[in-house]
């Protein structure tokens, strides 16, 4: 019998079901077990196996969410090893051995004895999974996006360079399902791309963010914000105006506060070489700052966040009306707001001088340095 592998997500069930009346494991794992082991076990054995896994799941603290691999032992036929990937990345191994037991009412039953999670945790590397199986899963567009993403995450552990290359290649495609594209956006935040690919990836992430900000689907905002953040980290400073569409009008996904923070991030490494090249976005940022610092508009939460991010973006852009914005901040008399802005701008100055001590002579640096004392 060849080794067979599958990996599926386990979801914790909130209700306990009868020992043999059904399964409390997620339908995904149940389907996978039934599919992969259809030739190895009969229906009764599978029912017992699924219920026993559910029992172990209920009794384990760490078995809340995870990803499981199920291996069939090639030597001891019928013996299973079920690895559960717990939230911290630990692998807990459950071993299942089918045996025949007798029940006075039902006659002979098939039962699996499941060992508790292993005494000594194994190294958390998916070496027990063949990378070729993982790659097959990742590349299989008929597999669910979450399963593909799980497999890709494992490949990030063992074949990071290839996995990053795959993310770069995939994310630039326009024929992906929305779910898979969304998963790739998050992977893009966790990948460091080679220099020659960055511009194309940046443009693609901006396009994804722009398109998905019109989505009303729950969860799409996380993807938009992630794409925007990652794109901003790749935008050349002289192209900061590319963020303008995310500041121009409201959309189902509100991108204002994130886009304003992204403006600051674009200039995290260095101030604008020619602030006048950013005049268009500067003007928009300034409008946000003074509007949201207005005492009639300012309020804790999103509005305050927009105000705070806009002031920091003004500073990063070298906006000469920074002193006026600081005056508005002071008039609000919020100690926490002054503290937050001061903290961020000091970090920005340190980031600039840490990379280029000469930049302390430039206008944006001087602008912040000269005006910061006004916040005290």
């Amino acid at each position: 019998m060849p080794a067979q592998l599958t990996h599926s997500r386990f979801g914790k069930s909130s209700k306990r079901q009868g020992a043999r009346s059904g399964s409390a494991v997620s339908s995904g794992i149940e389907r996978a077990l039934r599919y992969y082991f259809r030739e190895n076990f009969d229906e009764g054995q599978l029912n017992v196996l699924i219920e026993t896994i559910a029992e172990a799941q209920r009794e384990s603290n760490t078995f809340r969410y995870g990803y499981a691999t199920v291996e069939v032992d090639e030597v001891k036929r019928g013996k299973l090893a079920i690895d559960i990937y717990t939230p911290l990345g630990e692998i807990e191994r459950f071993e299942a051995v089918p045996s025949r037991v007798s029940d006075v009412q039902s006659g002979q039953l098939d039962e699996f004895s499941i060992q508790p999670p292993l005494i000594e945790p194994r190294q958390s590397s998916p070496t027990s999974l063949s990378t070729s199986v993982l790659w097959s899963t990742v590349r299989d567009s008929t597999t669910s996006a979450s399963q593909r993403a799980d497999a890709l995450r494992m490949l990030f552990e063992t074949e990071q360079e290839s996995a990053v290359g795959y993310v770069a290649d995939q994310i630039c495609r326009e024929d992906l399902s929305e779910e898979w594209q969304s998963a790739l956006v998050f992977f893009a935040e966790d990948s460091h791309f080679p220099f020659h690919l960055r511009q194309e990836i940046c443009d693609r992430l901006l396009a994804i963010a722009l398109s998905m900000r019109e989505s009303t689907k729950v969860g799409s905002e996380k993807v938009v914000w992630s794409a925007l953040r990652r794109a901003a980290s790749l935008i050349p400073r002289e192209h900061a105006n590319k963020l303008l569409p995310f500041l121009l009008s409201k959309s189902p996904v509100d991108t204002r506060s994130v886009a304003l923070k992204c403006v600051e991030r674009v200039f995290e490494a260095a101030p604008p070489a020619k602030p006048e090249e950013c005049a268009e976005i500067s003007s928009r940022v300034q409008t946000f700052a003074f509007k949201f610092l207005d005492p009639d508009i300012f309020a804790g939460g999103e509005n305050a966040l927009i105000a705070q991010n806009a002031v920091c973006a003004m500073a990063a852009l070298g906006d000469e009306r920074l002193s006026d914005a600081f005056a508005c901040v002071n008039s609000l008399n919020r100690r926490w707001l002054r503290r937050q802005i001061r903290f961020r701008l000091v970090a920005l100055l340190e980031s600039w001088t840490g990379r280029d001590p000469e930049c302390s002579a430039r206008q944006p640096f001087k602008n912040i340095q000269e005006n910061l004392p006004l916040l005290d």
Partner: protein
Amino acid sequence: MPIVYLPTDRTESVPRFAIVGNYPDQAASRFVKHVALLQSDEQLRFGAADVRVWHMGPPLVVGERSSAAAGGGSTCIAHLIGAVDLDRFDIEGIVTWLADVEKENRPSGIRGFIQQYTIDPPVCWHTAEDGTRLYRRFNCVGFVLDCYRSIDINLVDDTSKDNLPEVSLETIESAYGRSVTTETIRGRMGISGEGPWRIVLAGYVFHSLSRANSEIRDSPHIPKSDGERDFPIAQIPSDKSA
């Protein structure tokens, strides 16, 4: 004193954004395993279950969106409460910080858990190729510390490792579970090697809160020993079980 000793036989009013802590075993342990922020004003008793909190579980749950993504709820048991005397502006600052952090929420599931979780430092930035900051990583303590720092309340001074007592693997295992006995997991979470490590523990937060409000605002707490992993250190009467 901001510490609220929750009684077992009646409820006590606890304000929004108070710091909630819990023990792994309320009868046998005073080791503080988890800290979180109370979502709203509540009436709580010692051992109250399903208390709605914002926290780094994992997963990170900081608002309605992340709460929905985490399965519709974010709760923990309350054994300990620390309620700093927050004013209206402090509340406003925390609400704004939460709105900011929620933008950085990662996908739920194992990918999000691992990528956005850290043991040491308790809060740090995940960065792009050139060091541009993308999103924050937290553990439960870092989440609470960073939140209060945003309103200029620094509960624990971890600016220097020398300020933190050495902590054994056994203690870290009590806090983070058996997975940290695996070196690769420890490395991923920022605590490589065999230890001991100088890291922030949840108990330190409550020792910080066991001071006058003015002192809490004026100066961060520096833990004196790793015994501060427990709160309180000495046993207290069972009818005031916290």
